[in-house]
């Protein structure tokens, strides 16, 4: 099947998912991001690469945080950024998703950064837009959040170098998590030999093993000797249905505490895509502890997004 993310020369045209991306492209993004980290350490944190380009942050689902990181990334590339929170405006007036996109494309958009509650929304937009417009998926339903997956890979590489010797655990609500899906694909593409997911059965999708992971229900066993732990955010609403009995019980069995961290390798790094729920999925002692790289993740996130935007804009 034709990969909708690549153009006929095999270059990245849209970034919709990490699934199906050649390892070479993933590495190229990470390598390019290294240069942008260096840019961010300068007096002037801006480069003129995307001068004159119009980038639209198209957020059908609210997320100030992700939107801001994309906005900063675009501005550091000297692009013009327009932020649109569609959730509140046109969609409620009955305009369809593609009508909205067409309207913005008519305003000479060069790139759309799309966040949408439905899986596949950015694929739909990518298929629809004119050839010169690029689409970056900033999170679609439960499907993918590829820049988050990439920035996590960037972080792991910074601290652990060689992917092919690592054991990585992803803990929490994999079922509803686009972040987890993107991480699993990315870790596989980069050759991580052992990827573990740790969660109660109610928070795992069917046949998750088909994605190349080992399933653990016991967090202590799952954390044994891992090099990196990626915690997932647990939405409060999961407590309301029959998925979990209570936050209290979840924290007891799947909350990331110092005691549990002791089972990972002594130099294991702790990651979280944010925003964190302290005392629900992670203890402050772990989140703020010496093994936490949660804040560097945020810094690297900007560099990775700059890398993705410049590679797309140049294809």
């Amino acid at each position, binding site marked *: 099947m034709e990969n909708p993310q690549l153009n006929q020369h095999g*270059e990245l045209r849209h970034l919709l998912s990490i699934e199906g991306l050649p390892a070479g492209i993933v590495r*190229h993004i990470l*390598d*390019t991001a*290294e*240069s942008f*980290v*260096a*840019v961010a350490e*300068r*007096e*002037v944190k*801006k*480069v*003129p*690469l995307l001068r004159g380009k119009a980038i639209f942050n198209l957020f059908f689902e609210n997320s100030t945080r992700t939107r801001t990181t994309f906005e900063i990334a675009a501005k550091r590339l000297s692009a013009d950024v327009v932020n649109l929170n569609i959730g509140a405006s046109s969609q409620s007036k009955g305009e369809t998703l593609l009508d909205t996109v067409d309207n913005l494309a008519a305003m000479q958009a060069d790139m759309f950064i799309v966040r949408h509650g439905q899986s596949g929304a950015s694929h739909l937009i990518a298929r629809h837009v004119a050839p010169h417009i690029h689409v970056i998926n900033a999170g679609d339903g439960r499907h993918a959040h590829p820049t988050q997956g990439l920035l996590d890979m960037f972080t792991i590489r910074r601290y652990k170098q060689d992917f092919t010797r690592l054991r990585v655990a992803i803990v929490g609500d994999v079922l509803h998590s686009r972040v987890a899906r993107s991480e699993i694909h990315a870790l596989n593409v980069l050759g991580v030999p052992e990827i573990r997911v740790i969660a109660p059965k109610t928070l795992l999708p069917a046949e998750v093993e088909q994605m190349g992971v080992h399933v653990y229900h016991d967090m202590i066993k799952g954390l044994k000797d891992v090099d990196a732990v990626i915690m997932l955010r647990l939405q409060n609403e999961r407590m309301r249905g029959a998925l979990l009995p209570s936050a209290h019980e979840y924290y007891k069995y799947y909350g990331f505490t110092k005691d549990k961290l002791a089972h990972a390798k002594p130099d294991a790094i702790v990651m979280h895509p944010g925003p964190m729920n302290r005392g629900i999925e992670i203890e402050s002692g772990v989140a703020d502890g010496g093994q936490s790289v949660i804040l560097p993740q945020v810094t690297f996130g900007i560099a990775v997004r700059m890398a993705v935007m*410049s*590679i797309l*804009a*140049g*294809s």
Partner: protein
Amino acid sequence: MQLPDAEQLVNQLIAQLRPLAGPGTGLVGIRSGGAWLAERMHSALGLTTPLGTLDISFYRDDFSRIGLHPAVEPSNIPFEVDGCSIILVDDVLYTGRTVRAAMNELFDYGRPASIHLAVLVDRGGRELPIAAQSVGARLALLPEQNIQLNQDSSGRFSLSLHRVEEN
């Protein structure tokens, strides 16, 4: 066409630059050829300020046509640019666009006191009002000719001539 000996040119260039090299002089090479040359010059001139390298990929003016260079590396200017006298080094000066990009990038690090441009070969064909103060050799080349600096495993420099590939 007989190309000059690169090693000889480097030495000439170093000799030309020696009077400029003071304790506060910053040396910056443009990746990749300019960075190789700058490395040689840095030790030959006995400079104390650490060597800088620029990767001008993010400043190129042909980005929208050819996209991002496939192997961008971080630029590294490990000294204070503000008020510094900088020698900027590149292997070949042609249209002047690379130097324009490099100067723009340098200014994003700070405001240098001066920039002195040193190139191994000036092949003419300028498209911008840019000139080098120190030049190893001046060659008149045809547009379809491409001159390239090479460095072998022992660190020796040589020049070679290629035909520009048709795209």
